[in-house]
């Protein structure tokens, strides 16, 4: 009995050790920006209550948060999976866009098909296209040893032109003012999970992806190779792991996850391809992945927290005319403080 109690005590202590730096980082970041807010003359308390509680005051706020949560979670995973192998995927934005293009292309070209066929095709197209877009920098890394940070970023910029071409030249919707394609077939749309306020079932896929990735990385031999590669590539190579293949595969899986989020944006949210649908999901996804320190168990929780902040930030801009960027600065500061807590702990 006493043994069990100490064990419980240990795990509580471990949990507290993990959580306390986060809590301190959040408080410190809010405090730092709050001082600035007050100096400029904004109502700090009202701003912060808007940021933190908009998601929980109304059903609509909560659904908005979940809708934001899906791409953020997937972008964070797209960054974190390659990070497990020690590689930085900064191309989630391009992979999302190209995944969305693939999903929209299939949804438009086969718009007559019934849902049973079309929906899986749309999702698969997103995954394959996103994976393909990541496979290019992954292959360049594999074949020539080229730094993946740069090439994945370059692929983002190329994808901006690609989506513009698709949305203005190939399947342009002439009635829309903004570059947009015609809608995909009704069979390609995600069924609604909740009718009012509308919540599509993309979140089920996103959560399933998070669980699968977590289980694979932490509970299978393949995942063990991945983690070992990230921990010490040289030792892993000696041990017989083909680390270059690990780099290659981890980046492609990351791209597939980002591509899935593109498909969900098209088939779940917009029902068409819209230029700019990638929003700032990539940056937030990276922030989430780094805040979670690459821990796949922590990513879904951190992603939810950031989704809450983001929905609150838009509300704050709408009702109080305070620029959303303030919240972005808060998020970047939280990240910096979380990272700093590692330094403090080391001493």
């Amino acid at each position, binding site marked *: 009995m006493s043994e069990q109690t100490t064990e419980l005590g240990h795990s509580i202590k471990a949990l507290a050790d993990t959580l306390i730096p986060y809590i301190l980082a959040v408080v410190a970041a809010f405090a730092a920006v709050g001082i600035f807010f007050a100096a400029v003359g904004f109502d700090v308390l009202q701003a912060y209550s808007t940021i933190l509680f908009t998601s929980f005051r109304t059903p609509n706020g909560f659904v908005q948060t979940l809708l934001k949560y899906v791409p953020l979670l997937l972008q964070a995973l797209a960054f974190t999976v390659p990070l497990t192998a020690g590689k930085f995927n900064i191309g989630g934005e391009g992979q999302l866009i190209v995944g969305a293009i693939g999903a929209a292309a299939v949804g438009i070209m086969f718009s007559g098909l019934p849902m049973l066929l079309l929906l899986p095709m749309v999702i698969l197209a997103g995954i394959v296209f996103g994976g393909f877009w990541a496979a290019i920098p992954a292959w360049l890394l594999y074949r020539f040893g080229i730094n993946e940070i740069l090439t994945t970023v370059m692929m983002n*910029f190329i994808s901006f032109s690609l989506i513009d071409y698709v949305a203005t*030249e190939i399947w342009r919707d002439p009635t829309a003012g903004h570059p947009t394609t015609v809608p995909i077939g009704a069979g390609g749309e995600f069924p609604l999970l909740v009718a009012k306020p509308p919540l599509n079932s993309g979140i089920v896929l996103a959560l399933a992806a998070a669980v699968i990735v977590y289980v694979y990385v932490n509970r299978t031999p393949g995942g063990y190779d991945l983690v070992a590669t990230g921990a010490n590539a040289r030792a892993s190579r000696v041990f017989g792991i083909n680390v270059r293949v690990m780099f290659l595969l981890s980046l492609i899986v990351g791209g597939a996850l980002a591509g899935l989020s593109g498909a969900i944006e098209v088939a779940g949210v917009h029902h068409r391809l819209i230029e700019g649908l990638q929003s700032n999901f990539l940056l937030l996804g990276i922030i989430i992945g780094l805040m979670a320190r690459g821990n796949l168990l922590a990513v879904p929780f951190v992603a939810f927290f950031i989704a809450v902040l983001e929905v609150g930030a838009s509300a704050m801009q709408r009702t109080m005319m305070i620029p959303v960027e303030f919240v972005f600065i808060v998020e970047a500061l939280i990240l910096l403080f979380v990272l700093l807590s590692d330094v403090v702990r080391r001493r």
Partner: protein
Amino acid sequence: MDQFQMQFVSFARLVMLAMVPYVLASQGTMLGGRTGLFSVSQEGIMLVGASLGFLGAYLYGSLVYGMLLAMFVGGLFGLALAYFTTTLKMNQFVIGLSLFFIGLGLSTLFPKIVIGVTLQPPLIPTLPDVPIPGLSQIPILGDIFFNQNVLVYFAILLSIFLYYLLYKTSIGLELRSVGENPKAADSLGVNVSVMRYVTAIVGGMLMGLAGAYLPMVYTGTFTQGMVQGRGWIAIALTFFGGWSPHLIFLGALFFAGVEILALRVQVAGVGVPYQFLLTLPYIATILVMIFASRRVRAPAFLGQNYDREKRTLS
């Protein structure tokens, strides 16, 4: 001058004009890299530099103030990078990305605070051309090289100066040694930390100035994301130039050439959708990286932090 000659002169003039942000940002990257600091925050620092360069010029009515403000903030970012990586020994990529985020956020925040959200953003005057007496009269060459704005001259002189500093002075030798083998440099009495702080701060200032160049020469105002990947391209360019000032200068001419060529072809209209022309600089970057991966070597200690109490490197 016949038609072809005029075409050539105007093209070459534009290339010289477009080369500046690449040169400044890449030389800044090179400086840090030579002491082992690999920054990936160029894009963010350039965005902040563009934003504050514009605002400084708008508020104080002088482009010089805008440039100074952009360089000051760029230097602060460099200082932060050096502090977190050299003093606190944190991962360079992670810190570089964090600084990139902060720069990105601040770049759109400042104009919203200072000017507010307007349909018609205010304009600042663009940087005037300053012909150099005598030299600007030389046919063809005068127009290309000696009838430009001051930052074009600055970029050229900076590249020459850095070449001299790095390869012809003892400070340059010490600086290079820090990036190759900090332990050996340390044992010979070189202060590794000071070297890293100085190069990071100066490098950041150059990146800030590179950003300020964009509103001051191209647009007259700040627009969101206006750096358009030039900061990232600068990293590739630095690799391509083998971390040497003179080759970086040539590489910058190449990238500026691609940028101007894409614009020219777009205007001329050759039947290729303009979206594909817009991708040219990015595709060129990837190709250049493939080339550089084969032939060029980077400083041996690039991207790593030096801990003098550790026995081994890396």
